């Protein structure tokens, strides 16, 4: 690592990128080996050692206290005290430092804003400012773009360039090839905890992807044209609140036909999660209706919705999708355990469960040493395949996939994508929600862009990314409005809802 260099660390999920960086930041202790700074071996016993050695880190999941202000968060851990007296905070000086640092590097933040009111991109900026106030020379950014809109990502890249110009070194951890090529001076590819190669940003996407997974993978999804049939899922005027009783889905209309993939694009937190949970009966609907094959299903229990022929891949597999302590076999029947042939009366039929597990593991290429292994010991990609295998193993009318490839390695992404397309081709309606625009554009036959609880526009998958990016940010160009399926009245309402917020 050299001063003023942006060094990208590229690797599949579970390759050990984050672990390596956590060691570097002093969160984990190395079992073997050592870290050298300016030729001197460095012993890091905790993050404070790392900070004093000039290493700062912006975590994938921000380490901010939501109810504190920007200044308070930045001073946290290095509180300034008045006249050196313990217990007396010198907020004014801390605030001055925040303003100074943010101006020096062109990182505009309001020092008095409360974190939970700020958009994700700004929260990230706060994290960066926090690291910079500690006088770091080396900044580690762990998957910084995972939660950003294309525009926010662009801004982040600009910030990174200005930091570089100021002589700071940056380690940029990611598995997105495009960003790496756009910004990195040097690329190190990691696989299974080992460095497998260094590349220059001129290397092609295919080359980098091949280095990451160790073989050549297709980045585009091959598929025939869709043959849409009758409408299967119809959502009309749906209103849903989120956990904080704040309106998340606000009078939404959506139709998914048999044999098509409808991709929902949008920045996270625009109601996608709540929409799907409402369809699945996991969240109460306040108004509007959800119809499956002509039958109104809102108000049904989740079990009944699943029984009616809906398959569901939840967006957070470790929270909602899997019971980590359960075996692979048990997870493969998590939502059909009480159905024949897996149960008779009150008793589980373990032979049938085991036999079916064996079949699914083979069919869906789940890499596990045995079906009895706890699913938590599998890699992210294989865990996801377990969920996909479970949901696609019964006849479906509607398949809902939320972030089906989040945190999944390239090899598994390819496999999961082909399964989604296969499900479409046998006539299932597919509702795909993803924050990866590439994924939506690659898989979807129609792309619905969701913004503040509504569909702001429905476009074809060939629409330029910039246009979709604008839609995701809530800006509707004339071209997009024309194609919008929503009634004109809905569009007219959009500005009012913004004012309310």
């Amino acid at each position, binding site marked *: *690592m050299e001063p003023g260099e942006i060094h990208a660390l590229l690797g599949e999920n579970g390759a050990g990128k984050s672990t390596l960086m956590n060691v570097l930041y002093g969160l984990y202790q190395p079992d073997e080996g050592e870290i050298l*700074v300016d030729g001197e071996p460095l012993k890091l016993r905790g993050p404070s050692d790392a900070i004093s050695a000039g290493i700062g880190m912006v975590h994938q999941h921000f380490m901010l206290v939501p109810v504190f202000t920007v200044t308070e968060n930045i001073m946290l851990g290095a509180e300034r005290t008045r006249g050196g007296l313990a217990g007396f905070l010198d907020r004014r000086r801390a605030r001055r430092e925040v303003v100074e640092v943010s101006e020096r590097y062109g990182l505009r933040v309001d020092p008095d804003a409360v974190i939970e009111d700020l958009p994700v991109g700004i929260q990230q900026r706060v994290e960066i400012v926090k690291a910079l106030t500690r006088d770091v020379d080396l900044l580690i950014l762990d998957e910084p773009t995972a939660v950003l809109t294309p525009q926010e990502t662009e801004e982040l890249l600009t910030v990174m360039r200005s930091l570089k110009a100021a002589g700071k070194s940056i380690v940029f951890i990611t598995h997105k090839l495009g960003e790496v090529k756009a910004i990195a001076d040097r690329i*190190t590819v990691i696989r299974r*905890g080992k460095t497998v190669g260094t590349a220059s940003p001129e290397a092609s996407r295919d080359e980098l992807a091949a280095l990451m997974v160790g073989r050549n993978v297709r980045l585009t999804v091959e598929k025939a044209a869709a043959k849409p049939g009758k409408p299967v899922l119809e959502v009309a005027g749906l209103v849903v609140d989120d956990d904080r009783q704040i309106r998340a889905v606000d009078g939404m209309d959506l139709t998914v036909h048999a044999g098509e993939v409808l991709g929902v694009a949008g920045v996270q937190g625009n109601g996608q999660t709540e929409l799907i949970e409402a369809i699945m009966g996991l969240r109460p609907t306040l108004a509007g209706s959800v119809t499956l094959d002509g039958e109104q299903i809102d108000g049904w229990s989740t079990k009944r919705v699943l029984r009616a022929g809906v398959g569901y891949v939840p967006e957070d597999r470790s*929270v909602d999708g899997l*019971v980590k*302590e359960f075996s692979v076999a048990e997870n493969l029947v998590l939502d059909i355990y009480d159905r024949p042939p897996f149960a008779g009366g009150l008793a589980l039929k373990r032979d049938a469960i085991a036999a079916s597990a064996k079949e699914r593991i083979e069919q869906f290429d789940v890499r596990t040493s045995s079906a009895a292994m706890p699913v938590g010991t599998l890699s992210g990609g294989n865990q996801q395949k377990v969920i996909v295998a479970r949901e696609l193993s019964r006849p479906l009318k509607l398949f809902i996939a939320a972030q089906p490839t989040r945190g999944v390695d390239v090899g598994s992404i390819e496999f999961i994508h082909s399964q989604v397309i296969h499900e479409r081709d046998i006539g299932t309606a597919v509702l795909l929600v993803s924050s990866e625009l590439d994924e939506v554009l690659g898989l979807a036959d129609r792309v619905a862009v969701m913004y503040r609880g509504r569909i702001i526009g429905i476009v074809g998958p060939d629409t330029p990314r910039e246009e979709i990016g604008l839609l995701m940010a809530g800006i509707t160009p004339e071209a997009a409005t024309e194609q919008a399926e929503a009634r004109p009245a809905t569009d007219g309402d959009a500005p009012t809802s913004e004012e309310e917020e």
Partner: protein
Amino acid sequence: MSSPNPQSGSPDKEPASEAQAAQESLDNTERAEDATTPQAGSATATPGDAAEPKPSLGRLFVANLWAANTVTVTVLSLVLAIVVGAILMIISDPEVLSTYSYITARPSDALNASWTLVSEAYANLFKGSVFDPEAFSGWLNGSNGWQAVLAPISETLTYTAPLVFTGLSVALAFRGGLFNIGGQGQATVGVVLAALAGFALPLPPGLHLLVAVLAGALGGAIWGFIPGILKARTGAHEVIITIMLNYIGTYLLTWLIVQNGVQDPNRTDAISKAVDPSAQLPRLLGDNLRVHAGILLAVLATWAVAWLLNRSTLGFELRAVGANPDAARTAGISVARTFVLIMVFAGLLAGLGGANMVLGSTASALTPLVVAQIGFDGILVALLGRLKPWGVALAALLFGALQAGGNRMQSYSGISLELVTVLQALIVIFIAAPALVKAIFQLRAARAARLQTSLAKGW
């Protein structure tokens, strides 16, 4: 390890290449798998951990409980508890303690006195709970009957039976993600209903016993249903509710005993009428030995709970809710319904434990202390048994033996019965803190580390 070239030493690359080198060196050895598995495990686990929300305290606790090498840690915890117990005996005995005042002059006095005290006490603990050689030789030369030989075992099993039920109650709830601190209250209400059915209902033998046992189960189930439904409907925390219901149950019992129709008319103190003989659990080895059919019910209950947990759809739901309620809900399992069912079953088991206390041979009438501490001991038993049904049964057996042996230790060695309670508590403390036990005995982690460094150097 060769020292890396400082020129090329980019800090972010070093750990990787170092680890790589270490791994390669280990690949050549037979121990490669043992040594690298923890590394690989931690590497794959960490990114996932970072992405997850913090697990609830309960889940973390269960994971901790199971992470330790259970058999080794359990045995070592027992050893540690026995050692600490010995120290306590010495300290609490003024005579022995006085020999320590001149230990530098005559150390043999102190050591002999301590050894005699401790060894005799633990010998009595063993004789009172498992096997008494004197009774055996007495049986051989005809000075006492075979009952005396089996008496220790009989006592142990008598104390074991109720603990199995309350232990299972706590374990079942824990597996479903609920802290059932209410075993005591559930057992109390169980004992009340069982006793009422036992002396108030004029029923024929056989049927009477069945009704009394079921009444006990029903009492516990009702007392479990309350926190279950409150949790499911209102989100009230079961720990608070069950603790409060313990108080209510205890004072319900104290109040009920002195009511007309319940209190023994021939007595002025707080004791109820005696349960009819037709409602009492039959003794298994004749009238002189206290062991009764409750222990058979306990074994049956253990089997039933094991089946329920591992082989039934309900158990599947219960374990799924316990391990990850979000995933269970997403998979269409009604978490609220499962919570209620868990608490009803847990209460039912504790109620059966309570029924044992009045239908068995420990007592035949209600008194304020009729349930003893079986509800609270059940928590310890469940933890010692690692929340697994047969483990719970074994843990109950150990606790039963400690209590049976403690009685003899008290009367023969003059060591107070409370020491047994302290021993039980110590065992559980050591089990709940496996890291402490491992540190004391320098277990695996330390050994593995030594092994790894020696290998890395050697190769």
